[in-house]
Every structure is written in structure tokens, then in C-alpha cells.
């Protein structure tokens, strides 16, 4: 993912950079960036480094500051403090028009009075590229987005998905250092969204352009990203790969924002190669967390629904964590079945299992035993 190819296919642009310092491999670097509006802190001490060619998603609920962060990078707003580097250069004071950034907007932002060709040619004309070159490059990106024949049409004559592809092409055509995307698929329906996710990923891997993608859709973030930056109330909550973020969330917020989770209040009993816990449901074991825990301290333990299973009558739990619960009901979702159970303290527990013959549903009111592995128990801060 280090190489960055020109859309003309002229070959790798910076293969020699491999031997240089890591600075040269960094597309974006944010250091202690803060943004305040009066007394309201929109962005709080954000540090982030994005490698060249990486696909990074800013994920978070609305109001978490992800769009503000994107606008800080675009330069349409400036930080209250901190430094923003793009391609190794300090860009904090550089105006948006000089940053060499591309941006894809949720409403496509195509010029309604221009044809598709003129829209894509716009950034090239701004750069005073010769007319023949413009023709060649525009045709090339139109083929790249698989819409080779729409050049003479006006944007309003295209569907939403097509318009968004044209708006992507308009970015790609001038080979910006970085493409920012602000919920680009938010206005499309589910089916088209899935299709466009693949399309964007294809363009990304084909061209190797660094992309920073804003979304509030966790599924989209998990599907598309190399890394996810999870944000909450202006702060970065966790930066991790999709797998890491899903199976090793570091906070309750991260665990609850992405997917479903079962949480237990526990007390740390002993620390060895694993962490021994006491809970209302008996002793439990958890893997060692990446942060320090003290014996006797209280903590929150998290288990993903798909890491738990219902113990069949007569089986022995072995070394697994095992607790008692009362079945409420089971919902069959095709290949998956989701069990809802009630714990002794009244909390609801969710288990997701593969749907197999003869063991689909639980009968409401029955006592069942739930088991899961110690390493699937995660301590959260």
C-alpha cells in the first residue's frame, strides 16, 4: 500500500521512498489538534497519523466531531491549536485551495450547469492542463468508473449512484494527495450503497490514493476500512483495524457502538496468565488486558454474542466460563439464531449462534447454561 499510482498508469510514483524515513510514508499527520467554538470543544487533543495509500474511516455518532475533523483537514475551518501535516508539509496555515485535497460530498456537489465532462475537467482547467491532455484524462477516469458514455450529459440526468461515481472521478482525475469523503453514500439506498462500497474499495486499491472516509454506519466502516478511528464527543476513542476494534474494543463506548455486546460488572480476584474475576454469577476468567489492572479493583467485562453458546443438556463445561440464565426467546435470522436470556440480576443477555438442525430455539422460562472461552472475555476500562 506504499506505492501510489498515477491514473495514467505511468507506474509507481514513489517506490524510492521505501528506504526513506517513515515521515515520507505518512499522508496525514495530526498533532494535538483542538477546535473550540466559544466554550464548546468540538475536537479535543486529536493525534492521528495516516499512511500513504491507507483507507481510514472516521466513525462515530452524530456530534462526535468526525465531520469537524474532516473540515479541519480540508482547511475550511482552522484549528484552535495543534498542527496538521499533509504529505510531510505543515498545512495548518495553507488555504483549502492550495492543499491539493479532493473531497466527495454526500450531495455529490456536481455543478448543475456543466456537463459531466466539464465537471470532471474543472480541476484540470483550474490547473491549466492543456486541452488534449484534459480530454484524454477525463475519458480515462470515465472508463475507470465504468461510465464511458455520459460525458455530454448533465448531472441531473444521472442516477444518484452514477452522480456519486462522477464526483469520485472528479477527485481521482487530478490525483490529489488525499481524498476526503463525507458520508458519500448517505443519500443512497441500501443495495446501491453496498455496490458503491465495493466500487470505492476497487478504486482505492487500483489507484492507491489515501482516503479518509466519514461515516456513522458501523457496517460500512467495518467493510471498507484498513483502520477505523472511533470518535466520541470530539475525542478519539480508539484507532484500530476493523477486527481489532470489533473483538478488542478498549472501552464500553467502543464495545457498545460497534455490534452488540454483553457486559458484566466484575471484581478482579487474581492476575496470572489470565485474569480471575468474581461476579454475581460465579467466578469468571478473562484474558490479560493491554492496560494495568489491580487485584481487588472493579471492572467491566465484555463478551460478544457470537462468542457465547448455549450448553447442551449433559455436556460438561470443562475450563470454559459458565453461567446460569433463563431463556426468554429465540429469533431465527436465516443462518443465524439470536437467543435472548435473562440473568439473575435482571439484565438481558444476547447470544448469536449458527442455526443448526434440531437446536434452533430455546423455550422461554427454561434454565440454561451459557459457556464461552476465557480469552473471549475482555476487560474494558
Amino acid at each position, binding site marked *: 500500500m506504499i506505492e501510489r499510482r498515477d491514473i495514467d498508469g505511468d507506474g509507481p510514483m514513489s517506490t524510492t521512498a521505501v528506504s526513506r524515513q517513515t515521515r515520507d510514508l505518512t499522508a496525514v499527520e495530526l498533532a494535538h489538534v483542538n477546535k473550540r467554538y466559544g466554550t464548546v470543544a468540538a475536537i479535543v487533543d486529536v493525534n492521528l497519523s495516516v499512511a500513504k495509500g491507507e483507507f481510514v474511516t472516521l466513525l462515530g455518532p452524530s456530534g462526535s466531531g468526525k465531520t469537524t475533523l474532516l473540515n479541519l483537514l*480540508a482547511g*475550511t475551518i482552522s484549528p484552535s491549536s495543534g498542527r496538521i501535516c499533509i504529505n510531510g508539509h505543515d498545512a495548518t496555515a495553507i488555504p*483549502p*485551495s*492550495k*492543499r*491539493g*485535497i*479532493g*473531497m466527495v*460530498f454526500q*450531495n455529490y*456537489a456536481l*455543478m*448543475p*450547469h*456543466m456537463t459531466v465532462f466539464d465537471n470532471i475537467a*474543472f*480541476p484540470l482547467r*483550474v*490547473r491549466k492542463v492543456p486541452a488534449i491532455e484534459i480530454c484524454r484524462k477525463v475519458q480515462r477516469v470515465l472508463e475507470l468508473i465504468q461510465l464511458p458514455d455520459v460525458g455530454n450529459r*448533465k448531472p*441531473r440526468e444521472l442516477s444518484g449512484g452514477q452522480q456519486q461515481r462522477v464526483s469520485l472521478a*472528479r477527485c481521482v482525475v*487530478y490525483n490529489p494527495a488525499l481524498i476526503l469523503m463525507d458520508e458519500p453514500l448517505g443519500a443512497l439506498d441500501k443495495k446501491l450503497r453496498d455496490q458503491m462500497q465495493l466500487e470505492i474499495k476497487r478504486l482505492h486499491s487500483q489507484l492507491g490514493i489515501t482516503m479518509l472516509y466519514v461515516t456513522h454506519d458501523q457496517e460500512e466502516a467495518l467493510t471498507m476500512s484498513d483502520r477505523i478511528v472511533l470518535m466520541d464527543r470530539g475525542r478519539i476513542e480508539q484507532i484500530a483495524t476493523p477486527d481489532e476494534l470489533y473483538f478488542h474494543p478498549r472501552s464500553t463506548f467502543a464495545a457498545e457502538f460497534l455490534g452488540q455486546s454483553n457486559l458484566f460488572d466484575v471484581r478482579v480476584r487474581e492476575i496470572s496468565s489470565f485474569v480471575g474475576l468474581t461476579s454475581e454469577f460465579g467466578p469468571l476468567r478473562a484474558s490479560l488486558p493491554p492496560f494495568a489492572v489491580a487485584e481487588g479493583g472493579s471492572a467491566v467485562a465484555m463478551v460478544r454474542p457470537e462468542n457465547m453458546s448455549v450448553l447442551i443438556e449433559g455436556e460438561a463445561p470443562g475450563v470454559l466460563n459458565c453461567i446460569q440464565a433463563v431463556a426468554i426467546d429465540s429469533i431465527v435470522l436465516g443462518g443465524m439464531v439470536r437467543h435472548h436470556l435473562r440473568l439473575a440480576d435482571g439484565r438481558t443477555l444476547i447470544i448469536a449462534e449458527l442455526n443448526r438442525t434440531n437446536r434452533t430455539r430455546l423455550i422461554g422460562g427454561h434454565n440454561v447454561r451459557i459457556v464461552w472461552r476465557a480469552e473471549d472475555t475482555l476487560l474494558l476500562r
Partner: protein
Amino acid sequence: MPRLKARQDHLRISSFFAWLGYFFLVVPSLVVIPISFSTSSEIAVFPHRLSLHLYREFFHSSNWWPTTVQSFRVATLATVLALIVATPAAYALVRYEVRGKRLIHLVFLSPLFTPVVVIGLGSYLYFAYLGIGGTTLVLVFAHAVMISPFVLIAIMAGLRHIDPTLETAAMLMGASRWMIFGRVVLPQIVPALAAGALLGFLVSFDEVVIAYFVTSPVSQTLPVKMYSAIQWEISPVIAAVSTLLTASSLVISLAISLLQKPAWKAND
């Protein structure tokens, strides 16, 4: 369904009064139309014989035609001047948050609230003091001041219609402010510019009070000529002139209302 019937009656009565209102307002100006087709010997609201005599007299007389040309010149120049001033002002007022924005807006609209007599007298005294009183230029300036609020309002409405993210997108693609204004903003507000220009032209072309104050016999406009024609010579040609003015105003108004819908949205 007595309630529905009562509502229908209510509607019928109110629409009757509405039509009565229109009738009352429009008839006095329509009365000139039949008069304009009279012969020179007979001036009547319902002439016995129709003729184009009065129109012929209007187009051929050395009295009327030069003032019409003068009105055209003044209205065109005043409109151009108003567009040059109002377009950047409208852009700034719609797009930027500046200190005292509301006050600036009010100042730009103030010619609307100032009595025309005051603008007329003020212009007369001011330009006389500058030593250029009575020239065409003075009237152009005075009319530009008077019509700029109309042009400003039309352009601001057009600007509020267009999406500001287009300008952000253009900026990120590297376009300069001038390029954004010229290539992104202006082409999109062409209908609003045209509507504003037509409205401004119409207002200036018809304006009599200010023109009466600041023109001299050599820079006289059509409405001023009409006004003095009523006072000094009871010429029936004025009916033909009025009819022509009414017809051209109607055409321009229709054009403005068509322009209210931006061209590229026309078939949505």
C-alpha cells in the same frame, strides 16, 4: 354536507370580491387601449372607427421618438450600473458573515423606503452642486440608486437557491475566488440576474418623479414627456404610448416570472 357547502359559498364570495378588486385596479389602465385606436378627429373610450393613426403619429413624430430612445438609454445604463453594484453586494450578503450585516443590508434597501420625491430633489441639488445637473448621466446615477434594491433582492433570492457546497468543492479543487465566482456562481444565477435586470429596466423606464426633477428638456425621458403632454397639450398620442408601455411591461413581467424557475430545473 352543510359545512362543505358553506365553505364553497364562502370561497365563491371571496373570489367574487377578489375579481372585483382586480377589475377596479386594472380597468383605468385598460381604458387607454380602445382610446389608442381612435382616429385623430374623435377621442372616445369606444371609438366608432378603429385606426392606427395615433401609433403612426407616435413613431413618426420628432416629439415622441427621441424621448423613447432616451428612456431606453437611461434604463439600460442604470440597469447595468445597478447590476455591477448589486451582484457583488448580494453575494457578500448571502455568503459571508460580516459585522453589521443587517445594517449593510438595510442601507442597500434604503432607496425603497426613501420617498422618490426626496431622491429626486436630493439628486437634483447634489448634481447641480457638482456642476453636471441636467445631463443624462445624472438620471442614470439617480435611477441606478433607485432600482438597485430591486436588482439586489432578485439576485439574493437566486443566490439562496444555489448550493454553497459547490463553492467549497470548487475551492478544494484549487479554484481561486474569482474563478469560483465566475465559473461556479455566476452561471448558476443567470436567471436571477436576468430577472433582476428586467425588473430594474422596467422600473427605470416607467419612472417619472425623479426624472422630472433631474432632466432638462434635452435629456427628457418618455414618462416625463407624457406627463408634460397631459399638462400642456391634450394629445391623444399619449393613449397609444400608454398602450405600448402596458404591452411591453406585460411582456417583461411574463419573462421575469418565467425566469424565476432556473433553466436547468425547467424539466424537473
